[in-house]
């Protein structure tokens, strides 16, 4: 599983990455968490506002920090 955090490195983006790491740890799943700061890649997902979280190419949230429970729910699907 690949989890991408889209954002330019602000506090909310960093928080989203931390929450994703926490969710992965708590679920004990094997997932690669990648921070994406390249605008071209971010636009490639059609994302207009960050932070955004993408799991295996599917945009789960954009423009807000998700909760750990939300991330866990998306990982389990």
């Amino acid at each position, binding site marked *: 599983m690949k989890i991408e955090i889209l954002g330019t490195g602000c506090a909310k983006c960093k928080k989203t990455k931390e929450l994703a790491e926490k969710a992965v740890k708590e679920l004990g799943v094997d997932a690669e968490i990648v921070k994406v700061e390249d*605008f071209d890649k971010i636009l490639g997902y*059609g*994302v*207009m506002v960050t932070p*955004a979280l993408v799991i295996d190419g599917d945009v789960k949230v954009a423009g807000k920090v998700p909760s750990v429970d939300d991330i866990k729910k998306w990982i389990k699907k």
Partner: protein
Amino acid sequence: MISKNGLKNKKFKVIQLQIFNKVQNQQLGENDIMAENTKCACGAANVAIFPCAGASNTGQISNKIAIELVRQEVGNMMCTVGIGARAPGLMKSAESSEKIIAIDGCPVNCARKTLELAGFNVDRHIIISELGIKKTKDMDLKEEEVALALEKVGEILQSE
């Protein structure tokens, strides 16, 4: 679904005041605008602007107005056709927006209807052809019409 509850109207009004700033003659393309505007939601107005960008002078003026509103930092311009396509990135971006502005070129209201069909509530709706600009198929936009539309849109947004 976008709710009006919890909207940061006060902040939005402050940002709206910037709309009367002098029109800049930058020649950035839409992609440049979007690239510049894919920014963190931290501190951003988080207002989504959806122009119809239709095949008429007023449709194209809606696009120019949306670009200008981005320059004025009123909000983030987003792809209306992406909502029609239910593109996940666009849908999620719109869902997180605190306020949605739809700018249609004419009363067919494609932008507003596209958003509503996708389940979004449009907070402000502007129709360019109702601002004193006749809809035609002439794509060579008249600068005076663009300026008039921008002025009227500014008045509408400030009147809220």
